[in-house]
């Protein structure tokens, strides 16, 4: 369902808390891709990412009356999603999806060998990210993939902007070591 609602997130939240369930559907349609991708970055497979992203939205819906309007809705939603993912990772190590880029890459005109190398590099990077400490991993995902400002990441991870930058530095340093192994 394309998002054509001109209302801001915070207006939709108010409408939802006032009893307009359709307003929450608008919020889901608006943010589902971003939240799904965020979850995928944590777990590395479609099934778990789907389940976690849906769970994040359900939890957000339940907690809407407690949403502090001093924060941005997206920051709050990201915080819930990151917590859902970290809780899952604490319980179960996800299975990353197998390599599957060769068919799609060759179909797009890329040579099979080149596609294989690219997929192998991607697999190694994903595996290395999965081995980072949780806070470094969350910081790296939010910064490198979602390009959120350090201050917003600090709000999501209940940290400070300086600590986020330091975590980011250590995440990259650890990744380099893991990729060089």
């Amino acid at each position, binding site marked *: 369902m394309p998002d054509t609602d001109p209302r801001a997130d915070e207006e939709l939240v108010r409408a939802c808390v006032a009893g307009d369930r359709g307003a929450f559907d608008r919020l889901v*349609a608006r943010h589902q891709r971003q939240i799904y*991708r965020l979850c995928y970055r944590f777990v590395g497979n479609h099934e778990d990412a789907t389940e976690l992203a849906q769970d994040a939205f359900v939890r957000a819906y339940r907690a809407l009356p407690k949403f502090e309007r001093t924060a941005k809705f997206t920051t709050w939603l990201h915080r819930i999603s990151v917590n859902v993912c970290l809780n899952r990772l604490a319980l179960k190590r996800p299975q990353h*999806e197998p390599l599957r880029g060769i068919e799609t890459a060759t179909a797009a005109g890329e040579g099979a060998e080149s596609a294989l190398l690219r997929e192998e590099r991607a697999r190694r990077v*994903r595996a290395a990210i999965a081995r980072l400490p949780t806070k470094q991993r969350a910081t790296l995902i939010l910064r490198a*993939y979602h390009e959120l400002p350090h201050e917003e990441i600090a709000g999501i991870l209940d940290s400070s902007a300086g600590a986020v930058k*330091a975590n980011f*530095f250590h995440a990259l340093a650890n*990744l380099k070591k893991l*990729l060089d192994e």
Partner: protein
Amino acid sequence: MIHLTDVQLTDAAEGRLDPEASAHLADCAVCTKSVDEMRAVLDSVASVSVPEPSPLFWEHFGMGVNAGIVQAPEPVRSWLPPGALAWLGAAAVLLLSVIGYYATRPSFEAAPAAPAAALGEPPALLDAAPDDVEADEAWALMRSLAVDLHYDDARDAGVLPGPGSVERAATELSEAERAELVRLIQDELKRMGA
């Protein structure tokens, strides 16, 4: 030479280093190497994409969220403004503290008669203690005991009241509390043989 900190190296890798640190970076091979390595790792990270699900998936995604919501309880719609619950909570704690204080402090209303009676003293001071401080017989005793006490002696004895405390004691103690105070002093005087 002092090298760039973790935070400054991060800023440098993201291309927003302040001028002073940039000047250092231009002259420092160690920091330049660190920044180059960070950028190389970032390039590797950026090359990993998330497969895009089919358009149909997104329609089902919303349905899955709705199914989860149906199983979950409805959000509680509050008529209170945001933050009101926190204030109500604080008010409740304060109220409980006040109630707790009055519930646990020594009662001056029930206890005092028995010891006085046991000492053979008439309980008149307690029963008949008037609310008017000037006409209060028990308080008159207090004043008579204190009348010969010199300021310097009291100060040397360390019993000097704080500014306004006597007035507060006289005006804020209930008649029963004043009577209890007098009873305690009378008991102490008897014990000392005064």
